[in-house]
């Protein structure tokens, strides 16, 4: 058996009685790349909120490298080695990509060190390497608010890596990207998977196919609906029903194109 980097037992989170996560069990091996899919509102983002300490569980616990995370604040969990990319890209728009990365790269994140210690050459070199990896070397010294959406997504992934975490949590990294950008992002994640444990949350099935080499987890109404390879998951009748059911029961006008696409994807076209 592989050792687990993340174990989640019987986790429940309720917001005023509404259970965003409901008796959820989950575990992740060291070095694994796991994709989580699920309809809107399934609790995927809440799941990451719990791991990163933004929200505390109502019941159950999360163990990272064997340690219960409940007593720790967000920054402490980050220092233990959990890095998170948000659903909408969140980079510091008034700083340059280089500065963004330097902030993430800083080894000692105390007030004193940040104030008095110069940026180490090793850190600078890491930053330069990362700039190249994410393809932003030529835009390293312009303000990040001039970057395109895709570049911001990559910069944020770069910031994650700069933190040198052991576990990367990536929430919808290709939302709003072009096909080409999506594929590049996939390659980037796959190369990161060689040295990190990664959880990727994604809606885009084509992208999921590109990166999901192992297990895919389907979340639905706050619990794990099923787990398996991408092919198993896509043909699982429960999954098909969840995706279709959601489309049919929405109150608003049903987007036929989306439904058709979904049907196509789920039938493993």
């Amino acid at each position, binding site marked *: 058996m592989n050792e687990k980097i993340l174990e989640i037992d019987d986790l429940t989170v309720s917001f005023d009685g509404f259970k965003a996560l409901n008796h959820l069990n989950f575990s992740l091996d060291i070095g694994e790349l796991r994709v989580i899919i699920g309809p809107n509102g399934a609790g995927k983002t809440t799941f990451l909120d719990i791991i990163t300490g933004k929200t505390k569980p109502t019941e159950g616990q999360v163990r990272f490298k064997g340690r219960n995370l409940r007593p720790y604040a967000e920054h402490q969990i980050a220092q233990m080695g959990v890095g998170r990319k948000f659903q909408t890209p969140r980079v510091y728009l008034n700083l340059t990509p280089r500065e963004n990365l*330097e902030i993430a790269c800083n080894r000692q994140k105390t*007030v004193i060190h940040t104030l008095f210690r110069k940026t180490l050459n090793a850190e600078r070199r890491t930053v330069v390497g990362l700039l190249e990896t994410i393809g932003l070397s030529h835009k390293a010294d312009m303000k990040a608010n001039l970057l395109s959406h895709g570049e911001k997504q990559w910069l944020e992934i770069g910031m994650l890596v700069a933190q040198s975490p052991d576990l990367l949590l990536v929430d919808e990294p290709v939302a709003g990207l072009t096909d080409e950008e999506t594929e590049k992002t996939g390659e980037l994640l796959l190369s990161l998977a060689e040295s990190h444990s990664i959880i990727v949350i994604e809606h885009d099935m084509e992208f999921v196919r590109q990166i999901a080499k192992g297990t895919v987890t389907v979340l639905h109404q706050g619990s794990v609906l099923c787990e398996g390879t991408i092919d198993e998951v896509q043909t699982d009748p429960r999954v098909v029903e969840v995706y279709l059911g959601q489309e049919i029961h929405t109150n608003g006008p049903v987007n036929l194109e989306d439904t058709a696409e979904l049907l196509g994807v789920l039938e493993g076209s």
Partner: protein
Amino acid sequence: MAVDTLVQSRGVDLAKRRSLLIEIAIVAAIALFLIFALPWLISAFRLNLMGRFLALAIVALGIDLIWGFTGLLSLGHGIFFTIGGYALAMHLKLPQPPGSGLPEFMSLYGGTELPWFWRPFYSAPFSLFAIAVIPAVIAGILGYVIFRNRIRGVYFSILTQAATIIFFNFFNGQQKLFNGTNGLTDFRSVFGLPVKDNRTQYILYIVTILFVILAYAVCRWLTSGRFGRLLVAIRDDESRVRFTGYNPTGFKILVFAVSGALAGIAGALYTLQSGIVSPNTMNIAFSIEMVIWVAVGGRATLVGAILGAVLVNLAKSLLSEQFPDFWLFFQGGLFLLVVLLLPSGLIGWLRTSGVDLYKQLTGQTRLSTYPSLEEDPEVEYERKNIGD
């Protein structure tokens, strides 16, 4: 490629060093002008006013640090400013040598014994120390309570405002301890020099200039390196900073305390030059004025804070001499105007339109002054989006 980028970042460092030297030269030139030329150009009365405005520029720098860079709109700097003033005034009001009597207002209200907390102010070094440290400590404690509980935005402003009201009422009501509403005034001598003497006031004016430079240098140091970039990051997205592994609380407390200390120093220098400190400067209106100075000059620019404080107060003194009832409307209008038309203040406007205007006037186009234009990603971006 990787080496290129590293070299590029070294190049950036060199450029930074050169612009730092230029900046030092400019600061020195302005200081020399203010110290040696200005006294010949304006009356002693006006010079004293200028000294006061420069003192206000120091608290404006503090506001810029906490609001402009860190994004925390403090309406409590009146507290720190006034307490800095009191710390010095208490020393000046104590008859020397120790034990030779009470400040006159105390005997007037029938006090017989000096309250315990007045005693340390017999000591000049303690008082000088207290000018900056007491406001810093109060700011630190206030900040600790507020930031630890993750109170931000409007709630932070409201809390600091509430604190201002509490302090105002306390000082205003303590007739026997602080002479209440009237405050402390009628200082005779400061460190052996007669306070009201023109020569003394000139020395105080110079001291104020030196402190503006010092405050500016400290703020520049705090905001230019990685620490400063982190402040901007906290301002723009605090929770992102947390998820990157920093605890913003300590950073915010430190900045708030430094900013409080600057306000205290400003208050002491102002008190010496205006001859009075009273709870009046703990009015909410005054703390809001400070914010207006910084907004007018330009947030997060430092220079803008100094410029804004001096210009707005200059306008205030000139206008209220001519039209005494008019100033408040003008100030309100000015604030609206800046918020609507110059959201990044005078300096922000100068940086964008001013540079273009200058180049147009001198006939330089951007192309001929910018050899690396073709590779500049920013220009590329602009071309793409705005059209060449």
